[in-house]
């Protein structure tokens, strides 16, 4: 009886790990897409409307889904409440949080990190250039992420359970 319970636990646990990995593959392209949409909104706010950054990030935060929305609303909050914070510092702080609750890879975050260096600190043309650059890089990452998703999402959904069962058989 105890053995059966243990075996079930092993299968369920490794199955869950597999599902988590599979979910990351599934979510990453969507989050990259959200980031691109957010950057395009930011481009409009900065390039055409000259909206001050604290207001612009609030607007962007309202227009995209989580967790990308959280990145922008976090920046907005830091800029509003912490006197003497530059946009770059606020952006990097907010990125740390995004890293914890998103499916993004280090390479994706690196693009955002670099983008943060110029955020708010240069003139309009240079702002737009750096937004465009980050946008293009994220688009490339997204293509890659879609491919990986097609290859791995279904695989990992079942692989966890299968490995679990294999373990159970081996242990018996």
């Amino acid at each position, binding site marked *: 009886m105890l053995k059966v319970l243990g075996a079930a636990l092993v299968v369920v646990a490794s199955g869950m790990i597999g599902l988590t990995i599979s979910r990351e593959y599934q979510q990453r392209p969507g989050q990259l897409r959200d980031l691109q949409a957010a950057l395009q909104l930011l481009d409009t706010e900065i390039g055409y409307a*000259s909206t001050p950054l*604290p207001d612009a990030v609030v607007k962007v935060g309202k227009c995209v889904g989580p967790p990308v929305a959280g990145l922008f609303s976090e920046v907005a909050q830091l800029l509003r409440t912490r006197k003497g914070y530059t946009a770059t510092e606020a952006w990097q702080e907010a990125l740390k949080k995004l890293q914890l609750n998103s499916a993004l890879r280090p390479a994706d975050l690196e693009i955002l990190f670099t983008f943060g260096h110029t*955020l708010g*600190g240069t*003139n*309009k043309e240079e702002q737009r250039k750096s937004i465009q650059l980050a946008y293009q890089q994220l688009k490339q990452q997204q293509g890659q992420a879609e491919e990986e998703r097609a290859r791995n999402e279904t695989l990992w959904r079942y692989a966890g359970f299968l490995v679990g069962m294999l373990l159970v058989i081996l242990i018996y």
Partner: protein
Amino acid sequence: MSIGLFTSSSQTIRSVKAKIFLSRFQEQVLSMLAPEIRQLVGQLPERVVDELEEIRLRQSRPLILRVGQHDLGLLPDGRLSPDLERSYRVSAEDMHKTLQLLSNSSVYALEEEFRNGYITVRGGHRIGLVGRVVMDKGRIKTLKHIAGLNFRIARQVIGAADPVMPFLLSPGEARPYHTLIISPPQCGKTTLLRDIIRQMSNGVPRLNFPGVNVAVVDERSEIAGCYEGVPQHDVGIRTDVLDNCPKAEGMVMVIRSMSPQIIATDEIGRAQDVSAIEDILSAGITLVTTVHGRSLAELEQRPALRSLLGQRIFERYVILSRRRGAGTVEAVIDAKSLKTLSG
């Protein structure tokens, strides 16, 4: 006994005022400086902050404070020193961060201000900028690589106009006199004008003056120190400010839009100003304005002004100097008889 009481209470008022200024300084000016410089300037004793006029940041060069009439360096350990070479050196990083902070992280939204060469921030403080100019079709488009910043700390002197007010209000008439303040730069011309505006707008009970609508055409955001359109200095309860507006056009515009009894503006002197002034006079509005100069005789040399003075438009001239500190009133002159009324 009564004298003792009086001095002690006025000292209290003074120290309360200084406290208010200090806390506003911390909120409005310190928060815009890069962290390293903020920390150094934040350590300055109260009496130094009280006399602080300018903070100058020049990239790769020493940080310089203008305190009263002196240039002082700020050593890396926070002490003040007249030896400027030993002062804290401003890094490129400091410049970049300061620029981000003072633009509210939106350097891109300040192209207009860069073109003008200064930014007016909350509190009416003005920050002058220099750097590399970017041209577009033969005109200045914006500044790039900002390498020099000058924080000019704004201080309103409530009551600065007290000594001259009795001469500017005509007894028995609702309309104050057309007034021209004549002053060399840095003598408190704008400070005096601001307080005249405030008093005329609020009314002066001790002179039985009830207060009238005043329109200010503030071409360089110096009089009212507007931030996002809202005056940061006290310019009175009946005062409307047209901020950042060319004087000649602005004066004609406010006559129609706000029906003021008084129009105030700073630094007239160009030919187009003169024709706008004629419009004001024909509408029965009082003009209060300023001009750069040391004396009436000097103004007569300048063609545009000569015609203004020749037409006897103004009724009062107020002449300022720095003889006993900024804002020394040399004389108030009746323009009709050219008699000196005070000074």
